[in-house]
C-alpha cells in the first residue's frame, strides 16, 4: 500500500487564535479554520513523515479511534485540504520548494 506524505503550502498564511488554527489560502485569500484533527495534520505536515505514522502517533494517541478508520478519515481530510491548496500531498516525500517553504513554521503563537 502506498503511503501519503503532506507538506504545508508555503503560499498560505496561518495563525493559531487561542488554539483555533486560521489558514488563509494563497490562491484566493479564502479563510479557513481547522478543527482539532485538521490542525494536527497541519502541524505534522513536514513533507517527510508519512500520514500513517502521523495518525498512529498523533491522532490515535489523542483520540479513541480505530487506526484503520482514523487513517481513512485522515486521508480524506488531507485530500480536502490539498484541494484548497492548504496542504500539498504526494506518495513520495515532499522536498522543500523554496526558502520560505523549507523553514516555514506552523503559525503557532504563544
Amino acid at each position, binding site marked *: 500500500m502506498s503511503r501519503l506524505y503532506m507538506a504545508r503550502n508555503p503560499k498560505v*498564511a496561518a*495563525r*493559531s487564535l487561542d488554539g483555533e488554527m486560521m489558514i488563509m489560502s494563497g490562491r484566493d*485569500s479564502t479563510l479557513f479554520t481547522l478543527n482539532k484533527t485538521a490542525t494536527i495534520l497541519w502541524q505534522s505536515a513536514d513533507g517527510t513523515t508519512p500520514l500513517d505514522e502521523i495518525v498512529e502517533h498523533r491522532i490515535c494517541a489523542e483520540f479513541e479511534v480505530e487506526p484503520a478508520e482514523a487513517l481513512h478519515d485522515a486521508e480524506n481530510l488531507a485530500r480536502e485540504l490539498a484541494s484548497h491548496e492548504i496542504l500539498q500531498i504526494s506518495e513520495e516525500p515532499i522536498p522543500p520548494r*523554496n526558502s*520560505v517553504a523549507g523553514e*516555514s513554521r506552523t503559525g503557532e*503563537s504563544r
Partner: protein
Amino acid sequence: MSALLQEMTEKAQRLNIPFSVQLDLTYRCNERCVHCYLDHDDHGEMSTAEIKHLLDEMAEAGVFILTLSGGEIFLRKDFFELLEHARRLMFCVKLKTNAVLIREREAARIRDLGVESVQISIYSHRPEVHDGITLIPGSLKRSVDAIRFLKSQGLKVIIANVLMTQNMQDYPGVRALAADLGVECTLDPTITPMMDGNRSTLELGVDQSTLRQVFRDASLVGEVDEFCAIPAQSGESELESTPCSAGHTACYVSPYGEVFPCVQFPLPTGNVRQQRFVDIWRDSDRMKEVRSIRLKDLTTCPSCTHVGSCTRCPGLAFMEGNMRGPSSQDCEKSFARTGIPSANMLARKQAAANLGHNLVQIRALPNLASAIA
C-alpha cells in the same frame, strides 16, 4: 470582510489579541505627494535585526494580518529579507507601495513569497494630474507598468485613489483604468493632517458638493438611496459599541519602533526598542484608555443623528484635540451623505451665532453713542 474573518476579528477582540498591524518600514519616499502627512527624512529607522525581532514578537502575540507600508517600502535595501522573514512566520502580508520600483523581477519575487495583496496609490489616469500630485514626472507610467507586472504574476492588486481638489474630476477615469487592468479600486476622500500637527494639507480636501456627488455615484456606493438614507435612531447597544478597531484588534508601528493605536492616531503608547510589543499592546495606559472608550462616552456624538452610521475616526478627532470628540471631516461626510448636519456642526453653528450675538452686545450702545453725539 468575509463572515469568518469578521468572526475571527471579534474573537481576537475578546481575547485582546492584536489581529492586524501596519508596520511602516521607512518614511523615506521616492515621491513627494502634495497631500502626504509624513516628513521623508530618516530619523533613525529600525535595523534589519530590530525589525526581524519585532516580527518574531508580533507572531508570538498572535498578529495575523501584517501590512507593510511607508514611505516607500522598496527603498529599504533589506525589504525582501524582511518580507521573507515575515512570510516564514506565516503572516498574511499586504503591501502598500507606489510601485515605482517594482519591475518584472520584483513582481515575481513578491508572488513567490506569497503576498496576499499589493495596494498601489494612483491619483489619476492622466499623467499630468498624477505626476502633478506625486511631483515625479513619469511616475504614473512606472506605477501602471508595475501593476501589469504584478497582475501577470497572478497577484491581487488594489488601486488606492485619494480624492483631493487636484484630482476630484478624475476618479471615474481611475476606475476605468482599474477595470482595464483587471484590478480593484478604492476611493478615499480623507486627507490626514501631518504627523507633526501641521493641518495645511487639509486644504487639499474636496468640498461638500464633490462629496455629495461621490456619495451619489451608484458605481461607488451601490444603492444610493440606502447609502444616503437618514439613519435610524441608535439604540443602547450601539452606544455601547467601540468606535473602530484602533487599539482593539489593530495598531500601527512606525519605522522608529513607536507603537500607536493606528497610523491615523498619533498617540504614542510605547516603543518596541524599550519594551516588548505585546507588553505595550496589553499594558500601555494610553492603549487601555483608547480601548475603554465606547460611543456613549464621546463628548458630542451620542446625541447625533449619525452616531450609529458615522465613519468617525478617533485618530482624526485626537488630531483635532480630543480623542473623545467629533472628527469634523467625518461630520462633513455624514452631512454630504444624508443632508442632515451633525450634532457637532450644529453646536459649532450655534457657538458661532452666540459669538456673533455677543459681538453685537459689546458694540457701542446706540443711546450712548447718540448721547455722545
